[in-house]
């Protein structure tokens, strides 16, 4: 990690830290809620991958677009989505960001440029390409970012997006979060070659970064976002990371055989992006212990408040269930 290269101020560095921690603590809360049977649907947690969403979204404004995945809480929060309204959504409440209609896999806030989490693996790639087209036509330097997994990189739509993105020089940034697994399949068993290479035949610049190093991600995204804003076209970034929790929270209830070793998980836990970044900040004298503790407390308060809001929120009105399929029903 190198702060010199990143040119980030101390405040910005602490903001990165705060955002990663917020994602982590929100999801730890969700993990507990899930175990307690409080969540109606499945949740896929982003624990261990926070540096990617945060390192990328730091470059984005509300007007920029992102699309996300089934593992979308981190992207939502990193892009400025409201924690309480996210929590309420996952609780299935009326004050949820999608009124309880979407749930964990569909948290979205268009006012913040969050086109949303997505239950279709690879589904966000085409949406982001379309948003990039809209951004290009708007002509004001907006960009569109698609976050997707290593598993999604095997959907042909990625190649289609690289092709169109390159042809039209779209302001499109493709962020592949390679976390080692497609559900329960280790990446190498379902993914030939190197994902980062897949951009090259199209002449699309591509780079691979340590996805557990928020500053490395920040750097890579910095280049890519700048290029996109300046009309230089798309970039593919492969960020190497690891999913330290399950694919889905209750997987132990149905997965009968282990698909990875505890040692492997432990080894990656040691590379945790938040712990690493905290150590970096401390080592370089960029944050005092009490500053980090203050952030921890503030984040804890945000999470607690999110839970309060979510719990206080009523259930949606069943009469509204069919209400808004169309903007103009007739």
């Amino acid at each position: 990690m190198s702060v010199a290269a990143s040119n980030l101020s101390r405040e910005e560095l602490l903001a990165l830290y705060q955002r990663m921690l917020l994602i982590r603590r929100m999801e730890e809360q969700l993990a507990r809620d899930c175990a307690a049977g409080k969540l109606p649907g499945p949740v896929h947690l982003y624990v261990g991958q926070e540096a990617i969403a945060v390192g990328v979204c730091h470059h984005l404004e509300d007007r920029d677009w992102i699309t996300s995945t089934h593992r979308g809480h981190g992207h939502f929060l990193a892009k400025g989505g409201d924690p309480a309204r996210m929590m309420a959504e996952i609780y299935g409440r009326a004050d949820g960001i999608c009124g309880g209609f979407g749930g964990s896999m569909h948290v979205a806030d268009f006012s913040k440029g969050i086109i949303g989490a997505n239950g279709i693996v690879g589904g966000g790639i085409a949406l982001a390409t379309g948003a990039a087209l809209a951004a290009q036509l708007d002509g004001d330097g907006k960009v569109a970012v698609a976050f997707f997994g290593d598993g999604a990189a095997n959907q042909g739509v990625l190649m289609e997006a690289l092709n169109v993105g390159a042809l039209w020089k779209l302001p499109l940034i493709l962020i592949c979060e390679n976390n080692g697994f497609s559900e329960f399949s280790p990446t190498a068993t379902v993914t030939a070659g190197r994902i980062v290479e897949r951009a090259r035949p199209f002449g699309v610049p591509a780079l691979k970064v340590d996805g557990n190093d928020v500053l490395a991600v920040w750097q890579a995204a910095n280049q890519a976002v700048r290029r996109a804003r300046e009309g230089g076209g798309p970039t593919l970034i492969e960020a190497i990371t690891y999913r330290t929790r399950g694919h889905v929270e209750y997987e132990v209830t149905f997965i009968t055989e282990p698909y990875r070793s505890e040692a492997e998980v432990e080894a990656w836990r040691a590379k945790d992006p938040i712990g690493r970044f905290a150590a970096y900040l401390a080592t370089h004298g960029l944050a005092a212990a009490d500053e980090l503790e203050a952030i921890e407390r503030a984040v804890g308060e945000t999470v607690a408040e999110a839970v309060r809001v979510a719990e206080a929120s009523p259930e949606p009105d069943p009469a509204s269930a069919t209400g808004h399929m169309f903007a103009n029903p007739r």
Partner: protein
Amino acid sequence: MARKRMIQAMNEAILEEMERDPSIVLFGEDVKASLFGDTRGLWKRFGPDRVRDTPICEALISGMAVGAAAAGRRVICHMMFGNFVYTGMDAIANQAAKLRYMTNGQITLPITFLAVSGGGRSAAAQHSDAVHPVLANLGGIKIVMPGSPADAKGLLKAAIRDDDPVFFLQAAGRGGEPGEVPDEELVIPLGEACIRRPGRDVTLVAIGAMVRPAIKCAEALAGEGIEVEVVDPRTLVPLDLETILASVRRTGRLIVVDEARDTCSSASHIAALAAEHAFDALRAPIRRVTVPDCCIPYAPVLERAVLPGVEHIEAAVRATVGWRRPR
């Protein structure tokens, strides 16, 4: 009024709407060359920013339509043949039909998908499907199937102005059919059926390409004193059920003519709606004239055997009008 071909009417509709609303972007495969003629001249008029030839990649194209619409554009997305809807189905079914709902109505998705529908030209199984039943079951896609050049123009303009995803399905190979089109601005609201021909004996609901043979059949039978009322729903989603039911209540008999395969067709659905909501008025079994549950074959003699033609419709009308409750 001027006599125009259907494809010309569509072309004018797109052109006028793109003139009117600079937020519209149109893309698809070979929209510049324009296979069918509906997008002819638009590239020259509006330039390569707003009219874009895409590579062949329907999965991306349909998803881009959703993304661009979500990001504020009004989109016209050309899918070419109905069968290629399947190739781009993921984003149509999982995104276009759902994104607004899943996000609690945060956005509108003003997208007009264009495609031709149905057979009749020996284009064989992979270029002849009528895909409207598949689209209709998705719930979040409006469906327009025009039966005349004037309707094509007025409905396409309404579709483009509509804030929801609309599939505009033009009958394949029928773009050359002429008809009177008003010279003045023409916008026909989605969801309003039209009675093409009044008649007291039997209601014939005819969808899209089926309107013409239905009218022919009605005219032929009028000579024998059988008065067929031809109702053209014009849009299947939303469906103008009131007009259809009112007609059935008047005639007491219903036949639905649909160029879709029979199982789970729009014909089945309209029949089911009548069997629920106009049951007491029915004086005969509800018949469907549809494509049997098979693919569309290549050889003309085979294709004629499976596509609903005037003679199939006529047989259904005679059977319906002649039906007597068994003792």
